[in-house]
């Protein structure tokens, strides 16, 4: 049985901690003058992206190359998927070539579970529908741990602001942060929350002003802003984007009311001026660029954890 990384729930809290620690070692590799180790030499990683996401794909491919894996890229727009080939045929074709891991992105929730039935390779979920984006959650947790040194997760309060309903990032971040013990408040109009939050272990607010201005035991440590899809206003989920920004946008005024130490995070790509003001995105408390940088280290950790020999990384690196 191959090991997979399909969701935070499958990984569990011990797995999260293992990968965050491993990512720390990978970050050290990335600081070297030649940021490359032979750990996955001879391994083949396929990036199978049915949905455009240049940044996530490049992050994974960079991670694989720094571990000396061979990388094959399948992008749906220029491939057999456009000629009507089924998902199953595509996966079985890749499998026949002899591959070790498939990094998959698909607009439909659950695809990583389906394709695991058709290949022996390890599956890495690079985002499935509204469901999960576990490497994003890991890099977010890594970034929080790195930028709030000395703080424990079970002492942190994170607000996730925006379109939780349609967000795989929100689902995976909630799962990871709750597993690590953090307090999580989701902030959105009811139309942008899932129909049920049973079992999520989160608090709910529809008042961003109250959440950013909270002090004492309710004070925020992280304001995590989700991308607002422009088409949501056409589905009667919000009346207008302007109204969304005025109620749920992280404006300079709201950011100024956050506690001094609080971080601002965003999974990218940002709609500047919609869910986050440009001044806030570029302010010192914003760690958006660090998230991207840490993404490479976290994805190296994931690939190494899935495909590595199990030997000590330091020895592998020699």
């Amino acid at each position, binding site marked *: 049985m191959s090991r997979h990384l399909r969701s935070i729930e499958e990984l569990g809290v011990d797995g999260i901690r293992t990968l965050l620690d491993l990512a720390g070692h990978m970050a050290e590799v990335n600081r070297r003058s030649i940021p490359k180790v032979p750990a996955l030499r001879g391994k083949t990683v396929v990036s199978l992206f049915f949905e455009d996401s240049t940044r996530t794909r490049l992050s994974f491919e960079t991670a694989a190359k720094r571990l000396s894996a061979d990388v094959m890229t399948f992008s749906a727009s220029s491939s057999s998927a456009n000629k009507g080939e*089924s*998902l*199953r045929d595509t996966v079985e074709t890749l499998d026949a070539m002899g591959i070790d891991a498939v990094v998959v992105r*698909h607009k*439909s*929730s*659950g*695809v990583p*579970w*389906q394709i695991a039935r058709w290949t022996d390779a390890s599956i890495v979920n690079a985002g*499935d*529908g*509204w*469901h*999960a984006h576990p490497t994003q959650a890991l890099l977010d947790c890594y970034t929080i741990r790195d930028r709030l040194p000395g703080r424990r997760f079970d002492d942190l309060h994170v607000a996730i602001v925006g379109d939780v309903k349609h967000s*795989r990032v929100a*689902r995976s971040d909630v799962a990871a942060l709750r597993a690590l013990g953090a307090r999580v408040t989701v902030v959105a109009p009811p139309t942008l929350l*899932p*129909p*049920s*939050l*049973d*079992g*999520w272990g989160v608090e709910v607010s529809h008042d961003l002003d109250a959440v950013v201005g909270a002090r004492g035991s309710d004070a925020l440590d992280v304001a995590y802003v989700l991308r607002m899809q422009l088409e949501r206003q056409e589905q009667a989920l919000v009346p207008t984007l302007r109204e969304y920004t005025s109620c749920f946008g992280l404006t300079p005024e709201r950011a100024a009311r956050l506690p001094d130490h609080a971080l601002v995070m965003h999974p990218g790509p940002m709609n500047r001026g919609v869910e986050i003001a440009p001044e806030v995105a570029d302010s010192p408390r914003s760690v958006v660029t660090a998230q991207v940088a840490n993404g490479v280290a976290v994805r190296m950790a994931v690939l190494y954890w899935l495909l590595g020999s199990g030997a000590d990384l330091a020895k592998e690196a020699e």
Partner: protein
Amino acid sequence: MSTTLVLKGGDVVDQAGRRRADVVVVDGMIAAVGPDLDAPTGAQVLDAAGCLVSPGLVDLHTHLREPGKEEAETVETGSRAAALGGFTAVLAMPNTTPAIDSAAMVREVIELGRRASLCDVYVSGAITVGRGGERLAPLAEMAALGVRFFTDDGNGVQDTRLMRRALEYASGLGVTLAQHCEDDALCAGGVMHEGEWSSRLGLAGQPSEAEELMVLRDLALSRLTGARVHFQHLSTRRSVALVREARAAGLPVSCEATPHHFTLTHAECASYDPVFKVNPPLRTDADVAAVKVGLGDGTIDAIATDHAPHAPHTKELPFDQAPPGMLGLETALALALTELTLPVEEVLALLSWRPAMVGGMAERHGGPVTPGRAANLAVVDPAHEWVVDPNALASKARNTPYAGRRLRGRVRHTVFGGVAVVVDAEAQR
């Protein structure tokens, strides 16, 4: 040349109760029923020891896929699956390609059923042209060919005014309109039951209320027009309660429920296996419990399979893109015997004589098992245990959600029109 068949050593079960009796069938008709009858020379004798001899089962909800999707099922393969499941009558749904919305299409499917000759294939007609929900289909022309049941199944008729007109018109023909209850606007984009699991799995939901709204609307229309309405595949706790209340108030309504809605819940979707995608969707434990109560207290008239074959390459898609539907004909009886805590007589009532009444098939199907009646019978071994193997099914498709499940109760023989079409669980045609 007369043909004689004897079912020996079983207990006859029908609406008159249960008694030890052999059944002698001559030329398609039941000739004698009684204990320890002698088999005439030359008669085919089928062992029924330890078995129940029941009127053949009747399915009010079968998708045979022909014409249009012969890759998934044909009238012949579906009829064979039906016979193996103990059914001697099925009601073919009209959502074929093209839809069964004209006399010509009705004739074609009836003829395909006659040719297969494994069970009676009754045909339901579409309420609206092309099941498009815009114009009434020629109900009278189809009724003249014997069609007694009309539905746009797969779709509910959304337009309230059109549904009112359809009910009024149908009441003049003495036919029944059946509804797939789903408010499209409220369900838009939904691929599973809306709730805890859809939220967690990141799949768009179909709220229970989308079904209940249409049940409520059609109860109002039945009251307004006095016309009969049959509710197909009810799946929610409140739908069952609404129908219970309406029946108590004397409205002329009937309803059915499927085996999957009393055996599976939305938690199954966590595997993202599209074999669990069905419409109406699998719902909650409370809904499953309420369907069981409705089956037990008489609110629900019939267990109907909603047998919906899909070829593997069309079903093995991402969950949100896969077509809804699951196989049902070959597992329905065993699921009912295994999962319902009802006496076997009541299970058979729900699968045979009550649906035969609702579907207007009581002349030939659903018993009683008495001399002079057409010999459409199922011989059921209620104790036989078996494990569902998708590859062993007679249906062309493989989309059963019960692969690997251990069930109790099996159809041993099926007699259709006096002919043993299934003997010892093997199809003879």
